[in-house]
């Protein structure tokens, strides 16, 4: 078993003596006797050695045959290459085992990394302010909605059905507490079909770009709807696509939210991921979570510190607009490292390569008799197809052949499809084999 409590028997005796006790059990005399657990009643197996533990974890890891599938799945989680540099530097123990930077004089490393992260997220989104991270794309969307509702004083939310369904579910879950009225706006052939402004104007207009079917939604239309109704425009963006697409800020977004996993974080069975959050400067006092700011120390040297702290829950308590405390700092640091490594030209090249792989795969699949596009709108780095057999069946068949074929989706009007994503990791050989296998699997 592990030896992470270092006291020797002699030390235990002397420490107990120092505090006037005879036994370790006496430490818990403040717990009513009826509540004290007999050791025999605590049914947790005895500890293992480090090496036996590692063997059990390896057994479980090996049972995940999915880790060896060639990945064509996306839908918010993507199979990108990560530089060794990100792992080596990002997993340095000072980043990994630090706490939230409450004492800035000994936390300049994390604080400066977050300041650089905020700057890069702001530049990528075309907005002025970014926070120091949220949990994931879905929960960042919730916070974006909350900001918009607070800023406008209107609790109706127009949510494009182009938002990932799982993200929309999370928005609805938390709306049960806040009382927001979530109105889902349907897609028509892959693009959001915004309604005419009605009696109850929305506080937030939420659109995903590219959307859950991979389509480039009509952002001019979304911005127009937001302006016409007086709502804030919340854009759920994909940071890889943002390397080649107009930024949320250029489209008129007031808030941009997104999933930061594609930059430096493995797919990890869904977490820990990274909620990206950026906004226009006028909303800074409603931004959730931590914000790192630059300042100086007593000698006038540049220094960093978490700032505008009076927004946060530990000071504002029940009047805080968000309850976020622990965030995803380490993942944000990894993201900052990967973004720095990709750099100005690399980010663009990454988006371009994903689009090239997607185009090549899509063209090949659509040349197969029986495979059709699910919707007609233009796509970038993932696309949905209609198959002659159930997509669940196709996924199972391709998994047996070594491919993760995609994620089941629908066009919003009841037609099931398969959403296929192609990253810069997929080689032509892999794609050709995937297409050939798919051709057999749909017969």
């Amino acid at each position, binding site marked *: *078993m592990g030896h992470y409590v270092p006291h020797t028997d002699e030390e235990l005796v002397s420490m107990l003596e120092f505090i006037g006790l005879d036994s370790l059990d006496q430490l818990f005399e403040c717990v009513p006797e009826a509540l004290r657990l007999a050791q025999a009643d605590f049914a947790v197996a005895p500890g293992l050695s480090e090496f036996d533990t590692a063997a059990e974890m390896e057994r479980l890891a090996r049972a995940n045959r999915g880790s060896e599938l060639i990945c064509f799945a996306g839908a918010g989680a993507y199979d990108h290459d990560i530089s060794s540099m990100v792992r080596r530097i990002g997993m340095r123990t000072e980043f990994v*085992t630090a706490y939230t930077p409450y004492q800035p004089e000994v936390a300049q490393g994390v604080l400066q990394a977050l300041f650089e992260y905020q700057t890069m997220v702001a530049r990528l989104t075309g907005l002025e302010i970014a926070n120091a991270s949220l949990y994931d794309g879905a929960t960042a969307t919730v916070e974006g909605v909350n900001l918009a509702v607070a800023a406008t004083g209107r609790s109706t939310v127009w949510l494009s059905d182009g938002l990932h369904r*799982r993200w929309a579910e999370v928005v*609805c879950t938390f709306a049960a507490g806040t009382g927001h009225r979530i109105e889902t706006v349907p897609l028509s052939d892959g693009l959001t079909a915004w309604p005419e402004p009605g009696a109850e104007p929305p506080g937030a207009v939420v659109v995903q770009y590219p959307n859950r079917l991979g389509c480039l939604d009509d952002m001019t239309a979304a911005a127009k709807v937001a302006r016409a109704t007086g709502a804030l425009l919340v854009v759920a963006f994909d940071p890889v696509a943002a390397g080649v697409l107009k930024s949320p800020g250029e489209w008129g977004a007031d808030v941009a939210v997104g999933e930061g996993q594609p930059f430096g974080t493995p797919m990890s069975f869904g977490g820990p991921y990274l909620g990206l959050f950026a906004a226009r400067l006028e909303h800074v006092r409603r931004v959730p979570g931590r914000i790192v700011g630059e300042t100086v120390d007593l000698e006038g040297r540049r220094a960093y510190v978490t700032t505008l702290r009076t927004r946060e829950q530990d000071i504002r308590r029940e009047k805080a607009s968000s309850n976020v405390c622990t965030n*995803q700092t380490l993942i944000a640091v990894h993201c900052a490292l990967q973004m*720095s490594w990709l750099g100005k030209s690399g980010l663009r090249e990454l988006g371009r390569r994903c689009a090239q792989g997607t185009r090549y795969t899509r063209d090949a699949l659509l040349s197969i008799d029986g495979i059709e596009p699910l919707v007609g709108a233009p796509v970038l780095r993932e696309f949905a197809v209609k198959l002659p057999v159930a997509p669940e069946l196709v996924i199972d068949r391709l998994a047996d052949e070594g491919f993760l074929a995609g994620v089941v989706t629908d066009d919003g009007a009841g037609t099931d499809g398969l959403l296929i994503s192609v990253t810069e990791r997929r080689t032509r050989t892999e794609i050709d084999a995937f297409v050939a296998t798919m051709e057999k699997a749909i017969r």
Partner: protein
Amino acid sequence: MTSTISGGQATSIPMMGRDEEPTVFELSVPGRVAAQFRTTDVPALADSDLIPAEHLRAEPAELPEIGERDLVAHGTRLTHRQYSVDLGAYPLGSCTMKYNPKLCDEAAGLPGFAAVHPATPPAFTQGWLEMLGALGSVLCEITGMHDVTLAPPAGASGELTGLLLMRAWDEAQGRQRTKVVIPDSAHGTNPASVTLGGYETVTVPSDERGLVDVKALRDRLDEDVAGIMLTNPNTLGLFESDIVEIAAAVHEVGGLLYYDGANLNAILGVTRPGDMGFDIVHMNLHKTFAVPHGGGGPGAGPVAVSERLAEFLPGPLPVQGADGQWAWRTPARSIGRVHGWYGNALALARAYSYILVNGGDGLRRVAEGAVLNANWLRHRLRGTFDIPYDRPNMHEFVASATNIKKAHGVKAFDIAKGLLDEGFHAPTMYFPLIVAEALMIEPTETESLQTLEALAQAFERVAEIAAVGDDELATAPQNTPVGRVDEARAARQLIATYDMRPPG
């Protein structure tokens, strides 16, 4: 002991660099490239052939242009300006900054865990589902609860999940309650979560013992109260010994009891929230179960519930079928998803490996070590600071610098900064709110007697410096990568990105 050599004191801190580290943007040179891409042989196409003109970004985003070698040096130098558990003791009260076994890092980093797409069919993720199922079961055993969701990615997320479970329960009873009771010693996330859960916070005061004032609580309990949120041991490090009576009183009016697991480390294998009468329990795996804090996250905040609340849990949950195969299932009356996928899965894997390596016997020793260390340190510091609630505590205690402030005009804030110069991280300051000049100290079980002695001596030295009366601590720390940071200026002249810096 008069002096000691300790593994937990970062005496080499003065060696850390005091020169400014340039930002990655200042280190950039136009045209410099670090990025590489694998060879794919996928046909290249021009942007204009791939992207409709109206969507195409005109100018690339201004990311850094830095070579890999310089970037690695930059990142490494940043880590030299950062304190961490692996450098020395971190007695931050309420944060449980224990040593994180390296075994857990390696276990979570196995490709069999890390390289799995979350939408992979369950037949290909049996190891993940089995691990999550086993972790859920052992967390239920540790807390004495019936069922659990592992999805909330942090403690505050767990709190809000718990409050939405309360709402769902209320609605299922055909009622709409409006208030949740919280002690005045509670963490700030509690009232913030209550508001987001759609309830109104009612504060109950602590009595002279530092515990919930049971009479005052009874005065606040009525048919509008959905429940109470309690941390036990509370944020003073004291066990709420009236908990059975409190639970009965809350249940009597039909309310639920919510357990904030921030301080669960103190009671592992000793007593269980379920046995105390709690209905909803969140755990901070990044505190109790050694998931490293990562500079502020990621954590994990699973929520366990009693049997009557299990049908409302967020989905999906891992369940094992009669055939031994694991699958996902969402409870019939689920409140819905609380995370885009299944929570912070790799953090969950770390926690599971930590529980395996410690086992039931080891977890009990964790609690014993944590409580012993905190009591020892309280006794050791009695002559140095006021101890407002000077009686047996659990994993942490709250000292007060009121004596030093009165005698020498030195605040808790300055004491904390002084401690940084001694090679230790400071305790939590000014919390809980009910103690003036609070220094909340949680040594954790992984610090040795030698480190505790060194920490005590460091506190004593700082108190001696305060007593000299020449205001030396007002400018502390001196030996850290930067000196005292001007926090007011950061808020007054907001510079939240490099682009917001004033020109020149």
